[in-house]
């Protein structure tokens, strides 16, 4: 697929939190990932599986009092963000790597016009005359599809709809043409039709600006339509990674399979016969109380004694990586297209 160079490479990242009993425990555990220019990597999993923690760790936005980095590298091109001091990191954040959050209202300042808020992020990182800066803001508003940008410049966030607010947040994130955009549940608070517009926008801007995008979402439908690669997290670890075609035609990890089978689809019952949805029994375990072995074992139908003894390593093939003792060898080595051919 994409042969462009990776813009972001995360290697062996480990982030720890301080528990109430003053013990450090991992919330992001030995995670590797890479994102190329013009590519969207989706990070999926249920709440509490560590996907937002991964994003905050990359952005270095976690509170120092209760969170610490405990290993690994976050390479933006060649630069290790984890080695930067805070002033250096501040210069990178919002300029080379940006983030869009779930709820646009909480990431905007209600007392400042939206134009000023975009302007701030332009002048924070770049030297330009007031006229140039204003021009840039109008161009950005135009880029993210806000009608009548000159008039909207002077409006406050509460004047705008949820979809328009999220466009403003995206305009702020894109003000300095970052190489990497991390979008954490960017459309979860929005209606479906607006969701499609916002994701279409991110996709278009990604191609036009040559960014790498990390799309964090719990919505597998969104993943299927808007990403090229998929990474599944569970209890802080990467448990599967594959290109989108392979993942959706033949998910290999039991957690990935169960997640996909639990999504309701109208065609499941349209012909009268009604298939119950697959349930995943129990819930994501609390990360400060993980035992030995695979964290999914208690909820897994395939698990046996070997699963709870040691943590399954990631087995990597040309098509995917899976961390499961019980995944079939063919699951690991076959691609989506090979799978489709086998069925045909």
């Amino acid at each position, binding site marked *: 697929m994409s042969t462009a160079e990776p813009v972001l490479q995360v290697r062996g990242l480990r982030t720890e939190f301080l528990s109430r009993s003053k013990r450090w425990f991992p919330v992001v555990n030995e995670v590797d990932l890479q994102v190329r220019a013009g590519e969207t990597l989706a990070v999926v999993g249920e709440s509490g599986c560590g996907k937002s923690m991964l994003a905050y760790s990359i952005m270095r936005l976690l509170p120092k009092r209760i969170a610490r980095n405990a290993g690994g590298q976050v390479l933006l091109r060649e630069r290790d963000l984890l080695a930067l001091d805070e002033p250096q990191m501040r210069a990178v954040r919002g300029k080379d790597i940006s983030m869009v959050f779930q709820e646009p209202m909480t990431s905007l300042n209600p007392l400042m016009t939206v134009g000023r808020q975009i302007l701030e992020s332009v002048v924070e990182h770049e030297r330009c005359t007031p006229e140039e800066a204003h021009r840039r803001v109008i161009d950005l508003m135009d880029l993210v599809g806000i009608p009548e940008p000159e008039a909207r410049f002077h409006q406050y966030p509460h004047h705008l709809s949820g979809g328009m607010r999220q466009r403003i947040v995206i305009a702020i994130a894109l003000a300095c043409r970052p190489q990497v955009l991390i979008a954490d549940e960017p459309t979860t608070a929005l*209606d*479906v039709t607006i*969701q*499609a517009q916002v994701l279409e926008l991110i996709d278009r801007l990604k191609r036009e600006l040559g960014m790498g995008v990390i799309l964090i979402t719990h919505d*597998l439908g969104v993943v*299927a339509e808007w990403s090229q690669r998929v990474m599944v997290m569970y209890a802080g670890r990467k448990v599967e990674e594959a290109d989108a075609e392979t993942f959706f035609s033949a998910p290999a990890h039991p957690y990935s399979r169960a997640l996909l089978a639990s999504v309701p689809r*109208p065609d499941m019952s349209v012909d009268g016969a009604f298939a*119950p949805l697959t349930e995943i029994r129990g819930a994501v375990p609390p990360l400060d109380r993980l035992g030995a072995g695979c964290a999914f074992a208690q909820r897994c139908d395939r698990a046996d004694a070997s699963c709870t003894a040691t943590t399954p390593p990631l087995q990597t093939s040309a098509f995917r990586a899976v961390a499961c003792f019980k995944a079939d060898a063919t699951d690991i080595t076959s691609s989506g297209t090979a799978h489709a051919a086998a069925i045909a």
Partner: protein
Amino acid sequence: MLQPLLDVKSLVKYHATHSGTVRAVDGVDLQVHAGETLGLVGESGCGKSTLGRTIVRLHDPDEGRITFKGQDISRLSRRELRPVRRQMQMVFQDPYASLNPRRTIRQILTEPFTVHDVGTRREQTQRVDELVARVGLHPDHADRHPHELSGGQRQRISIARAIALEPSLVVCDEPVSALDVSIQAQIINLLRRLQSESGSAYLFISHDLSVIGYLADRIAVMYLGEIVEIAPKRALWNQPLHPYTQALFSAIAEPLPPSVPRRPRVSMKGDLPSPLNPPSGCRFHTRCPQVMPRCREAAPPLQEASPEAGGGHRVACWLHHVP
């Protein structure tokens, strides 16, 4: 045809706001039949929750009639409503906000029985134990407080409370929207199982078309206070007629391999207009990709789209108007 369980006619509900009156529900006609699931779908602000709450009389209707089991309940007083409430219950989106945090699960679940004076103390205790088991919780959960349970478990409790007196209609307002997919699947399966056991009808309100499409027998689509299309699921799924329904359906993101062809995307222009000042004529005309001059002038009636094909598919659109 049988008399419907619920028959809503020309229902209107206004909300007074600082900036004027919102016609949140503006002339809605719909029926729910015994034992069926009617899905009510629409985007935020379309009035679907207000409609649900007005039907169970948490809001007083401003105009129109709600007939439940043959009885007009639209003007009943609180006292007169009491026996009706036994038959008609509601499940809300946020189970934490709808469960009293200071009471144990047992106290919460006993309340429907005491309010409606059903059974002796001992029978009530036994019924609560049965309810806890029916919604798939452990007996120990009965003596805990809501904050000690997970979101999915709390939603099971809200459902248990709603079905305690075996109502014939349960209005579910976004009951799974706050839950993770795996938990959502558990609750959807639970609702389905309870319905097959008890035969209650559901009015299932959601913005999530995948959930509605999975659960509902018929689907009603709402836009700015009005029903724009209503049809059996299969008919609506295979052939949505209203351009708004088409746009909604084409925006569903399905978890299928990228190589599988999708519905062509029908894009809408702009945002939802303000419900304070809805557009003239057809309310969708400002965003409709197929707008005609007539649409700006007059509102299309909700009428049978293909009477010869057995009926049941109604749409409010000039493109499909039969004079």
